[in-house]
């Protein structure tokens, strides 16, 4: 089987990694943005339904050439 890397299908897997893991610096050097643990809880709850993600067009594409977010294309947003 091939690993799934569709952003839509693996959003909660992404959150598990990007919110809880990675390089961690010590407290004197760095501050973590204070609301991050709360964000984790809220986002995970939102992802359970997926509606928020789709509704707010979070799957918009980024155009690497022009360095801009492409406008939302209604046809690309799937109904949940």
């Amino acid at each position, binding site marked *: 089987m091939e*690993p799934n890397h569709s*952003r839509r299908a693996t959003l909660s897997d*992404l959150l598990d990694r990007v*919110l809880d893991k*990675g390089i*961690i610096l010590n*407290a004197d*050097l760095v501050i973590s943005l204070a609301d991050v643990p709360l964000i984790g809880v809220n986002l995970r709850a*939102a992802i359970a339904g997926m509606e928020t993600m789709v509704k707010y067009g979070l799957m918009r594409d980024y155009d690497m050439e022009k360095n801009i977010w492409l406008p939302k294309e209604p046809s690309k947003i799937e109904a949940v």
Partner: protein
Amino acid sequence: MKGNYLYGVVPTGSQKELGPIGIDGAIVKTVQYEKLAAVVHSCDIDIKIPSNEADASRWVISHQDVVEKMWERFSVIAPSSFGTVIKGEDPDQTTVKWLSDNYESFLTELKTLVGKAEYGVQIFWDLKKIGEDVVSENQELVWLKDQIQSESRGLAYLHQKKMERILRSKLEKKATGFFKSVHDTIAGMVDSVVIEKIKTAPEDLQPADLQMVMNVSCLLARTDEVKLGLYLDEINGVDGYTVRFTGPWPPYSFVGRYRGL
């Protein structure tokens, strides 16, 4: 006070301006120390993460987008958690000092990550189906099941409870045995395995009463992805089991924790 919002550390000898690809269009750049660079954008340390879910999600996804772009551009990255800001009177200076203090460890670590990626493996079983299998393989449980059909209510209740206890215990043993066997096989195929927490199954998986029995993150060469996939196909093919294979991810689970100043 100012800070450098950190996306990760990459191996590069030259300073780069990467453009407005950061969170909310922030301008991303590298802060150099010899052959290493921190990928950052300049920010105020008292910025607030948006409290509404949509905007907060956008920020998190932007973070990941930058990490992935840097991964592609520099071939390897030690990614940072979302929401990490390096602070200081002169954040660039603090960043340089941090890189220099941890120079050898970062270089060594990045070397071990070249050509590798993280993959997630989650395995679920259909509790009902597996439970039925366990019952049918066990004489005592088969007997109890038969008895319960024709017994008086009181006795049936006691036997039902006994059956549930035995079944629960057998399922636990089966899950543990399964986990160990699969874990050991996977560990023999990949560079490194991190055991993750068991969670509830995602909503889109069918049937709905799947129970997660394994959750691991693996670090492996991208060229070994196919081999791992074939092994997971074998498991996925067994009636009652479902495998969820995700990735390739930047190696969030496999980067060290670096001490600061």
